[in-house]
């Protein structure tokens, strides 16, 4: 190969690599991001079975049912709609009734939300930011 050909090969290789990286990134952005919903959003923007989303809201009062093993059921509400959630594992330290929570997972056939992650991020009001934002928009929760 001449020097020019070599240089071309190198440049082609680099462009190929960058192209592959761009393609991968675009694909991953399309497939691997999850949208954030509060229960009231589900009517406007339906979510299919198995589609990964993040569901946030308040843990409905009196809805937490612990089984004798490690499964937990509770309901997430934004004061308008309520969604039943199933989770297997240890709930975060700050998980409480009527406190904000963000769960990540997908709906099953019975429209029960099967969460594989439950977050109750800590800030002054025990309210994850995105939940607080959404609930404030809906006028359910006021900061004082």
């Amino acid at each position, binding site marked *: 190969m001449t020097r020019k050909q*070599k240089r071309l*090969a*190198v440049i082609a290789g*680099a462009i190929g*690599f*960058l192209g592959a*990286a761009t393609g*991968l*990134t675009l*694909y*991953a*952005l399309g*497939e*691997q*991001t*999850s*949208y*954030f919903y509060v229960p009231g959003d589900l009517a406007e923007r339906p979510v299919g079975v198995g589609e990964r989303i*993040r569901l946030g809201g308040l843990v409905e009062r009196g809805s937490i049912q*612990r*089984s*004798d*093993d*490690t499964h937990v059921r509770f309901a997430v509400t934004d004061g308008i709609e309520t969604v039943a959630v199933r989770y*297997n*594992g*240890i*709930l975060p*330290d*700050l998980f409480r009734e009527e406190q904000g929570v963000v769960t*990540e997972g997908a709906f099953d056939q019975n429209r029960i939300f099967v969460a594989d992650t439950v977050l109750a991020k*800590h*800030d002054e009001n025990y309210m994850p*930011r*995105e939940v607080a*934002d*959404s609930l404030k928009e809906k006028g359910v929760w006021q900061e004082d």
Partner: protein
Amino acid sequence: MSIELGHFALVLSFALALVQMTVPIVGAKLRNDTLMRVGEPAALTNFMLVALSFTALTFAYVQSDFSVLNVWENSHSAKPLLYKITGTWGNHEGSMLLWVLILVFFGALVAVFGRNLPLSLRANVLGVQGAISCAFIIFILATSNPFARLDPAPMEGRDLNPILQDIGLAVHPPLLYLGYVGFSVAFSFAIAALIEGRLDAAWARWVRPWTLAAWIFLTGGIAMGSYWAYYELGWGGFWFWDPVENASLLPWLGGTALLHSALVMEKRSALKIWTVLLAILTFSLSLLGTFLVRSGVLTSVHAFATDPTRGVFILGILVLFIGGSLALFAWRAGTLTAGGLFQPISREGALVLNNLILTTATATVLIGTLYPLLIEAVTGDKISVGAPFFNLTFGPLILPLLVVVPFGPLLAWKRGDLWAVSQRLFLAFGGGLAVALLVFILVDRTSVLAALGTGLGVWLVLGALTDLVIKSGLGKVAPAVAFGRFKGLPRSVFGTALAHAGIGLTTIGIISVTTLETERITAMQPGETVEIHGYNLRFESLRPFTGPNYTEDQARFVLTRVTGKAMGEVMSAKRFYTARQMPTTEAGIRTIGLSQLYVSLGDQTPNGKIVVRIWWKPMVTLIWLGSLIMMIGGTVSLLDRRLRVGAPMPRGKAAAQGARA
């Protein structure tokens, strides 16, 4: 009075930074030696003033002086002394002051160690450092003044946050900042080079130790943050691809690329313009990280929009420095002469490949971190880009880099022989393959990734060792000669080998934990036993315990091998801090070899059992051990004579030696 004096010292250092920013650069432009020399005493005095200011604030914390708003908001008279001190930087205002303190500290270091730099280069570097400190000091004074006062002063402070009372969290930010801010020196050198329109031969030699020092601190900061999250958050994750974590990973990736490209520039005078650009980009990523963490934009774009003063101010600084430096680059890069040529297959070629992959990987992390902000700002939708995105993009991009790492140090400069190098690495490759097969056959036949990943790690470690073996000539010459050569190898060779081996160990750790980790979640009551990975864990008792400012339920577990051999106890607890009404989980961690058993407690079930989550985390300690070895490698490399002085021996000495010869 001490407080106001600290406040005044900060204001004064702003005035002095203004001088430091303008006079030396003007001097360099006018070729006036006297004006150029102003930078040095200005940088030293600036450090003294900011240190005074920081000491005054720390003093206010130690003395619980609640006439200082910042102390009142973030401290409490009942805090232990250690956490009163660390509380100084446990909040926004104090941490920004720490940021500036570290910045002027680096400026002072340049002034002290830069005496043998060409005068105009030193003047321009200190001038740019002065400009950065100017921007950040005025940011502090205008939007986040830690010396704001309260009159009359309240009698008690407001904060006793137990989460912040952790030594790991207290040491973590300073380390991280040393890394972030350390890259400012490389940045200043880059800008200075652009202003002057020429790159000294010593330039790369100068940039490399500063970058290396910053890189070591940043590596330490990231590893420490990761370990803190691992043991403190109670679910055994070591990396979450959280935006805050990404903010520290981005400059690390950029800095790693910079280290390597500066090497090419130093040794071969090639990649000059690219190295300058990379120095600018790396510090820009540090600034971006500061912006992301400090402006509140991460928690919510709305929160940022409703209280924008701080965010907009930092954004302004960001635009000014990144935009300004890139514009300067676009304008002046043409004046820098491009350097040496080389074949694609050569050490330079390998380092270019390293840079290509690292910068691409940096770009994907950057996109993943900023994309949700962009979407929220544009469409209002809230999306999250989590671990799956990064695993899918960052993973496949970085893997090829790890595969080719061992080739790099063995290739010759300018024109390399890939075939010869492959032959030399044959043993290392065989070792990696053997381990991969062993893992596949003996440990887990279902996970190909586990086998390949572990093999890859072993390949990296053995490849690094191969480099040392070949450079010392072991096997080719008599052992005594080889040993002599081994001792005589430049420290940077050891540094490279250690850092590359460290990456290998970290890779093994990460891959093993993510693919071979086993987990049991079960409800237990005292007396019950659960088996995990060849160990029996018996739940012995649950008893309440009262600590100094918390109460906790301590669960005692007895660990035995399945064969019956006793392994001692594991304690795990659910802690409740009374003053803050805050529960935390204290994980029980037992290190066995390089692996760990991780026990964490959950809630009580209706029938009185307690949910217990147990993980077997194989080789997990290698993640941080590998980071530690990388840091050691960096330190060894930093101690290399040529880097330590940054420039060659004084001419007199060299001439004397020449005369004798």
